[in-house]
């Protein structure tokens, strides 16, 4: 046996030696930017996709009439200029004339019309249709000539321009084809800075510079977007310089702080985490109880305990990075103050049961359940910390972690009251402050106002905010909305996490760190060796 064993060890050993000689050499790496995708893109079509990986790829291949610059402002992209009439219901767009699709065809207003019609077509499996329907009436899109395009709105609608940043599709490649299953969605043609070359499922997406790009020519010749789903593997691949960028979890930051091959960037993402109350719950229908809980939750402790200090506390449903964020003196703050919490609960009729150390009202102990989705470690930890904080003021909170789809099914239940007490979840904020889908009373029980928030004053302001075009007026409206919502405490707004991004030092031409991305616009990015 021993000789047999030895023989095998020799064979295995030689395999190692043989293959280790073939470790890849990065030929052409100097002209290739290697980006990281944390998941397989689903579909490379901007009107169909809903996942982050797909939109990262689409952002390089497609262009919209507008694009979002590094300071989160809209700037013309395929549009040369636009004009809006006095009532805010007719927009006329002048389009750039020197634009070609990646296959050489000319880009015209017909492509824009085709894209909008496809979004509005009921047969298209898109979740963007409502973006172009206002009060039940679809926006009308008209081709005036090859480079002029008109949109007729049934009534003024402030978020409209932002929505025209959607990627435009080529009519010639998609006409009379079922867009839902088209092979185009796996080998797309756009007008953007990079051309699609290859997509190897679960491996990478390979893009090449568009030498006919109508804006500044991109400096990097090829971009390979590698699909590495596991965070730890992605970090190791980044260290081995197989990818040039990676998101770094707070707990791993120490490992990279003193590394010389990378630069670390930190910025607040447009995402906040909250504790939301089912407002039809007998205890949570009382605003004082909600305010008491807001006082009982130590947000700074959450930022330190959950985010390792990489984040900041949230007080309203908006981010300091956005133009609609109010000055600090206009934001109602609920400080961490357990004493105040206890007083508020006492004034609402709760008394402490000396045996159980749990508050009671009419013989009912103050017990409730917080649900959140399984697998999100930050939310799980947040739930546990809040549970302990509430225990200190005599509230008994239990936690239930749910698989994502059961979780969604629970909060989306089409009945009232919904089968949950409180929920920990996060919202990504759009660049437009419109919060209609989350706060308007019409969005309950079918909609994202699943907590059942209903404040007629907020409803009215939300409607006003959508139809007011002047941005300084809109700003005032949203300041008032945030104040009303914060005072009602339908959510305890918890924190904004900070995004930590590591970028290899060979990548230059980056924009200031912010939620619009570090490589915005991609044309400015270049590589040094």
């Amino acid at each position: 046996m021993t000789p047999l064993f030895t023989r095998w060890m020799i064979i295995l050993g030689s395999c190692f030696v043989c293959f280790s000689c073939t470790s890849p050499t990065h030929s052409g790496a100097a002209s290739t930017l290697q980006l990281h995708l944390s998941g397989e893109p689903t579909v490379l079509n901007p009107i169909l996709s809903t996942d982050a990986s797909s939109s990262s790829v689409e952002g390089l291949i497609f262009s919209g009439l507008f694009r979002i610059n590094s300071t989160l402002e809209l700037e013309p992209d395929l549009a040369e200029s636009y004009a809006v009439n006095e009532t805010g219901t007719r927009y006329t767009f002048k389009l750039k004339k020197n634009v070609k699709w990646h296959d050489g065809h000319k880009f015209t207003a017909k492509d824009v019309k085709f894209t909008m019609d496809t979004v509005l077509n009921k047969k298209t499996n898109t979740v963007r249709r409502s973006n172009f329907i206002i009060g039940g009436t679809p926006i009308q899109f008209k081709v005036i000539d090859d480079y002029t395009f008109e949109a007729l709105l049934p009534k003024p609608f402030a978020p409209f321009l932002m929505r025209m940043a959607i990627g435009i599709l080529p009519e010639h490649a998609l006409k009379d084809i079922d867009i839902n299953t088209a092979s185009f969605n796996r080998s797309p043609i756009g007008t953007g800075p990079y051309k699609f070359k290859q997509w190897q499922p679960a491996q990478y997406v390979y893009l090449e510079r568009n030498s006919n790009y109508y804006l500044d020519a991109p400096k990097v010749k090829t971009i390979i977007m590698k699909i590495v789903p596991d965070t730890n593997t992605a970090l190791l691949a980044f260290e081995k310089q197989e990818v040039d960028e990676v998101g770094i979890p707070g707990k791993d930051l120490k490992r990279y702080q003193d590394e010389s091959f990378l630069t670390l960037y930190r910025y607040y993402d447009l995402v906040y985490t909250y504790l939301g109350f089912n407002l039809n719950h007998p205890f949570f229908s009382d605003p004082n109880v909600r305010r008491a809980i807001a006082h009982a939750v130590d947000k700074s402790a959450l930022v330190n305990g959950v985010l390792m200090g990489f984040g900041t506390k949230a007080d309203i449903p908006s981010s300091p990075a956005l133009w609609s964020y109010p000055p600090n003196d206009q934001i109602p703050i609920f400080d961490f103050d357990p004493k105040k919490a206890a007083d508020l609960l006492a004034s609402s009729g709760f008394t402490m049961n000396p045996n159980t150390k749990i508050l009671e009202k009419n013989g009912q102990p103050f017990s409730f359940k917080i649900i959140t989705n399984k697998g999100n470690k930050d939310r799980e930890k947040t739930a546990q910390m809040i549970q302990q904080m509430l225990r200190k003021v005599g509230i008994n909170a239990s936690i239930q972690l749910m698989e994502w789809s059961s979780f969604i099914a629970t909060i989306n239940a089409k009945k009232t009251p919904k089968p949950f007490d409180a929920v920990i979840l996060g919202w990504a904020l759009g660049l437009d402050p419109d919060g209609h889908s989350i706060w308007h009373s019409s969005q309950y029980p079918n909609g994202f106002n699943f907590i059942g928030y209903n404040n007629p004053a907020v409803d009215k302001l939300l409607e006003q905010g959508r139809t007011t075009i002047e941005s300084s007026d809109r700003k005032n409206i949203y300041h008032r909305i945030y104040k009303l919502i914060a005072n009602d405490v339908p959510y305890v707004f918890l924190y904004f996490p900070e995004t930590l991004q590591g970028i290899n030092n060979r990548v230059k031409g980056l924009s200031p760190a912010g939620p619009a991305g570090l490589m915005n616009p991609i044309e400015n990015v270049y590589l040094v060796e």
Partner: protein
Amino acid sequence: MPFIVRRILGAIPLIAGVSFLSFLIMQWAPGDPTLMYLDPTVNQSDLAQVRQNLGLDQPLLTQYILWLKELLNGNLGYSYITGKPVITSIMDRLPATLLLSVSSLILILIITFPLGILCGYKKDTWLDDSITIFSFLGLSIPTFWLGLLFILFFSLHLNWFPTSGFLNPMLMEAPWLTKALNIMSHMMLPLFTIIIGGIAGLIRYNRFSMIKILAQDYITSARARGLSERRILFKHALKNAMLPIITILGLDLPSLISGAFVIEYIFSWPGMGQLGVQAVFQRDYPMLMATIFFSSILIILGNLMADILYTYVDPRISRAGKQNLR
């Protein structure tokens, strides 16, 4: 032959039953493909429209019959999430999956067979104990941890292999040999992670089956007749010891194409495991039904092959089979 034909015919209602049951179970799980994301910019009416377009508002039985009809026409449908033909998605992933699973199975067999037999033969010696301890260590180390450790050591520190992936994208247009060697270098770490985790079980099976055989009367009588140990081991014991292994291998056949999710996830290996698990979480019914359909066919095939192999290894089974069939 009639035995095989019968078994194949018997498999058809079995597969139909499996597909119907899995269809039901899938639909009973909460959520559907349109509920997978929670995005305040998405309106419920859009979701309802997509649901209607996908036919998810139809009664369950109608949905199943539609699926079955398409299947009989040789069409596995389109993924609800990507709009891509299901068969293309599976074919995209199959080569990488088979490459990894078949190579690991072959290597595991080559390693475990002699080691298991040896352990059984040298029962309760230091050799048996140390192989057992080593193999259990392999079994109890969590795969994700071992995988990361391998990447850290062999890829990052020694720079022998790439951290993850299947083929260096730069080599897209390289000659096939360069590509093959590059794929091999990507495969080494996932391969060794699977082998270390996989050998323990089979060594134990081989060992146990050898011990059992060696305790049988006919072995004792062979020894009494003065046959050499070598002859007893290789001529009398080995063939019989193989029987349980054949059962295990037959049952293992579906895992050849089902892929190994954790391994694929850690090493970004483009296999079926990731595809299947994603389909479960996204409630991508057509994709799920296709994977279940293939797995059930392979389970039945695996059992059938095991039965046929038995008749070669153990003539008693074939005789008994013939008697029963008469």
